[in-house]
């Protein structure tokens, strides 16, 4: 995995792990993904020199078991 394709999504300031409360913070990310899935975003592709509608879908998450429990609620 190349570093330029790795995104840092949010910074949550907290002294300890959020546990199940992580779902509260994922709200903006989920909203954006839903929007990218339903309506997409107009994007310029420099290799083909024209615009297209980019759509995104979350296919899987990779995590250890504590994080898996948090994401699943």
């Amino acid at each position, binding site marked *: 995995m190349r570093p*330029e394709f790795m995104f840092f999504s949010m910074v949550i300031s907290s002294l300890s792990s959020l546990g199940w409360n992580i779902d509260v913070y994922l709200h*903006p990310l989920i909203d954006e993904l839903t929007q990218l899935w339903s309506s997409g975003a107009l*994007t310029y*592709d420099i290799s083909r020199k024209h*615009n*297209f509608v980019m759509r995104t879908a*979350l296919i899987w*998450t990779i995590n250890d078991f504590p994080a898996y429990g*948090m994401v699943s609620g």
Partner: protein
Amino acid sequence: MRDSYELLWDGCTNPSKLSAIAQVFTIKSDHGLSEAGYGKIIEWTRSILPEGNRLKENFYAAKCMMKPFGLGYQKINICLNFCMLYYLKNAEMTEWMTCGHSHYKPRTGRGKTLVAYKKLRYFPITPRLQRLFMSPRTVEHMTWHQSYDAVDGVMVYHSDDEAGNTLTICILTFQLNQGTCVLGCVQKNSTHSGHLLLLILVGRLYLWFITYHRGCV
């Protein structure tokens, strides 16, 4: 993007105007340098560089140069008890009904600015994904699945066979607003469509994304 090719001064071999600013920004954030400290260092650096150098004169000018790259972030106020975000329709609320904790800190002195107890920094993914398509270097990796030729005996993504062209991917899309789980389907069936793999890092969670684009508009 022109700034990434433009040299810091005529005859300079390294670095470019953009990479110089990016490196100074990294030093600033790593060491918690103030804007005034940044300004003084840049002032001194400009004085020792050759005449006609293109180093931005202060932090504001450098920030304006970096703005079109879509690296910005949103600040969203959050409840101190981790129960909600003051986001979208809740943004104007002064306290949350569940825990009753106040949104803002009590005012001190004569200042009129309201200061929230806690903030979330959110980095939107849409401009970051769009940026990957704007650079000739990264767009090559974003569209490799369309041009890649399969090699016999090597297990790779089948980009050029029939199965690859009519690839059906079943994914689970979580529709949180309805609280239900729906099985969605993505159909890949034209030469202009394709899909890409991206990685998004959220704390300890690695979220893989599959992106596809279809046709032109």
